[in-house]
């Protein structure tokens, strides 16, 4: 379990919409692009952004959980596909799947897909570390006032209930329930009373919660919102470059420069110096928030201004 930590950095000071847009541009950009150079550029940007958000170490830690998935996808892409021309290894025939082969092209494709998934995961890790759930909720509550309250209530309840769960578990241990011995089914069975006790108590508590909400005038017409988030110059700047980067990306797609040929034979990731220029522009625009974050840390003057 992890809880959002407030830190003093540029990314956390951005408006939730800006942060969401950043996530959107990175994830969608990654999905529509298969050119490894652009992908590598995005990857570097995300890593540096993670560093700027003081979350590099937690990124490394979280990655381990996702590694299984990334590797499995790379293996599938390498083995299942036999469209590659440069066959390196030809394996046995397996029912349903046909012959397993490994070719240069499928390896390359697997690697690129692994990179893609890595970017998506990393971008979300960045998002989790910099998006304050309270702020996100206050934006969300503009559109969904009731559902936002539901989310807030649930979020508040979870830690309290966690504590209650721990208490109930302790008590049952005292009463003689053993959690760590016995077989698989045994262990599940021993934990069942936990859920039951917790459900009973929390249903009773939900009455109190409802009463408290009602006594504080819930549900009587429109609600106002305590949090007022302002859109600052930094948001406008960052948003501008994100949109610009995305626009150039779309243009590159139309020109066919965002994709790369894998099958039957690997194409070249770079076709011309113009192509290179464009890639640089895309990545640079995307990189601007990271530069701003760096300036934010270095110059207090800049911090006051944007």
């Amino acid at each position, binding site marked *: 379990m992890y809880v959002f930590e*407030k830190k003093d950095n540029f990314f956390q000071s951005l408006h939730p919409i800006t942060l969401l847009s950043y996530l959107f541009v990175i994830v969608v950009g990654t999905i529509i692009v298969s050119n490894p150079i652009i992908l590598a550029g995005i990857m570097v940007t995300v890593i540096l952004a993670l560093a700027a958000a003081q979350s590099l170490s937690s990124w490394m830690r979280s990655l381990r959980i996702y590694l299984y998935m990334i590797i499995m996808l790379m293996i599938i892409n390498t083995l299942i596909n036999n469209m590659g021309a440069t066959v390196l290894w030809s394996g046995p025939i397996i029912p349903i799947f046909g012959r397993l082969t490994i070719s240069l092209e499928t390896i390359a494709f697997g690697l690129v897909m692994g990179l893609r998934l890595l970017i998506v995961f990393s971008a979300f890790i960045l998002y989790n570390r910099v998006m304050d759930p*309270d702020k996100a909720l206050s934006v969300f509550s503009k559109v969904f006032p009731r559902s936002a309250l539901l989310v*807030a*209530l649930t*979020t*508040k309840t979870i*830690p*309290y209930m966690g504590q*209650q769960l721990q*208490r*109930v578990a*302790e*008590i049952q*241990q*005292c*009463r*003689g*329930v*053993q959690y760590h011995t016995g077989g698989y089914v045994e262990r599940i069975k021993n934990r069942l*009373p936990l859920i*039951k*006790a917790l459900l*009973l*108590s929390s249903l*009773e*508590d939900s009455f*109190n*919660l*409802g*009463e*408290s*909400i*009602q*006594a*504080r*005038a*819930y*549900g*009587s*017409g*429109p*609600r*106002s*919102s*305590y*949090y*007022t988030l302002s859109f600052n110059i930094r948001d406008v700047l960052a948003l501008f470059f994100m949109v610009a980067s995305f626009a150039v990306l779309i243009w590159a797609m139309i020109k066919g420069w965002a994709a790369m040929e894998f099958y039957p034979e690997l194409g070249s990731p770079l076709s011309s110096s113009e192509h290179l220029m464009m890639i640089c522009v895309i990545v640079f625009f995307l990189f601007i928030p990271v530069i701003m974050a760096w300036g934010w840390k270095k110059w207090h003057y800049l911090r006051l201004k944007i």
Partner: protein
Amino acid sequence: MALLEIENLTYFYPERDIPSLDNVNLHINEGEFVFLIGPSGCGKSSLLRAIAGLLPDFYGGKIGGRVSYCQRLLTRWDKKLLAKEVGMIFQDPEKQIVMTGVEQEIAFGLENVNIPPQEMRRRVAEVLALFGLSSLKGENTFNLSGGQKQKVVLASVLAMHPRVLLLDEPTSQLDPLAAQELLNYVQRLNLEWGLTVVLVEQRIDRCFHLADRVVFMDKGRVINQGNPREIVKWAAKEYPHYIPPVSQLFAGWDTENIPLTIKEGRAMLSSIKPGLLREKDTVPVRNQDEGIDKLKVSNLYASYNNRDFILKKLNFSLFKESITVILGENGAGKSTLLKTVSGLLRPAKGRVFHNGKDITGLKPEQIAVNIGYLSQNPNDYLFNDTVLEEVNFNLKIRGRRDDQSVDRILELLGLADKKMVNPRDLSGGERQRVALGTVLVTQPDVLLLDEPTRGLDVELKHQLGEILKVLRNQGTSILMITHDVEFAADISDRVIIMSDGEIVADGDKRVVLANSLYYAPQINRLFKGTNDRVLNIAESLQILQKIVAKPSVVS
């Protein structure tokens, strides 16, 4: 005209055929401080809910009679406006907190009534400052202490600028000091803001004299009401346990001028015999330290995170056939101590011995056979379908069966006729006893009880006290946490005071409680200077009778 008028109010909860409110008539004036008392289950909370407009709306059921506020029936009031005018605080602060952040929690009610952000900011800042919470405004409510949570709850209601404040046992979780602080706030709000207050509270001695009017309820009816002096005179005969100890003492002495506070009581003592308060007299202290060690804790350190020690260098022993009470402020580490002894938390350092045997590293379920541990919240125990199964569970899971002793325990706890009832259908006091029953079935010879008196009224507390005394006389040694000083003074043999993870006092109750700033019971404070060792009414009556002959007015 009165601000609040309740006429012939009768109310049935859904699926109930006994009325929880029975023909209640009550008028409350603007700016009045009303103190509502009565036995558990008499309908105090229900009455507050009715005033707050929650009763028919939130609970359904059947209602008759009328409640009006400002000459208008509650049913005619726009709920939003009513909630702005009448604020209610419920018993358990944890269960009524809605938001994660302190600031958002306070703003929640304001958001609901659509206050513009600018105004909201001002009001939030004001109430935060009023309760000295400004430094906590960015905190997560989850991390606050009990007293702080209760203050946040109060602040969040006051931010709505209500004219009437309804408080349902707001101090039941708090240590004596924090409770007093909260009550002081309430009194100040009443005196300085002219806020109308209706207070339900079990700490009778701390509230009685604050009120302009005391309303006494029983079985859903208002039995009597009047200013504290009138009520004290009446209740001294009818419900002697529901008045402050000082009043109880003098009620057997002089029925005309019953004092309500220590100050009045001391004045009265001086008038009975001038100079009495300067004479020294002592009740001899029994020598306690001669028992056999049942449980011995030596040099105990404990921590939840291996960084901050919650318990520091604790040393004490429990003797056979004794009741030891632990007092201490919220967060002092009292519960942590019990958890460590019962094996739920591994001590960082130190040893625990039971009957001379080292039990430090044992699993909780092994320790539980000899050392019964009853946690703070009885609800955490109840998940079986009947009381009998619930109590039997501890034996069943150990593969044992002993119907006789189960029956005996149910008998002792007064639950024999509730055997087949679903424990979740029981009242708070009964649930407490079921939980205690589950602990007793393995026949432990040491009992650790964490705040068993919470939410119990005087009667129930007395019953619990009797049960504990029976257990003690059967040879059990009991270690009990409580915030209720009067109860501690009444039943304990020994008292330990903890503060910030350390034991700061440990000894005979007379030595420890007497002259303590926060933990001295009322009677003891009354006799301060003359006899530092009296703790309860019976003793003090004896002393008084020694000094002056009892006037003949006493019936």
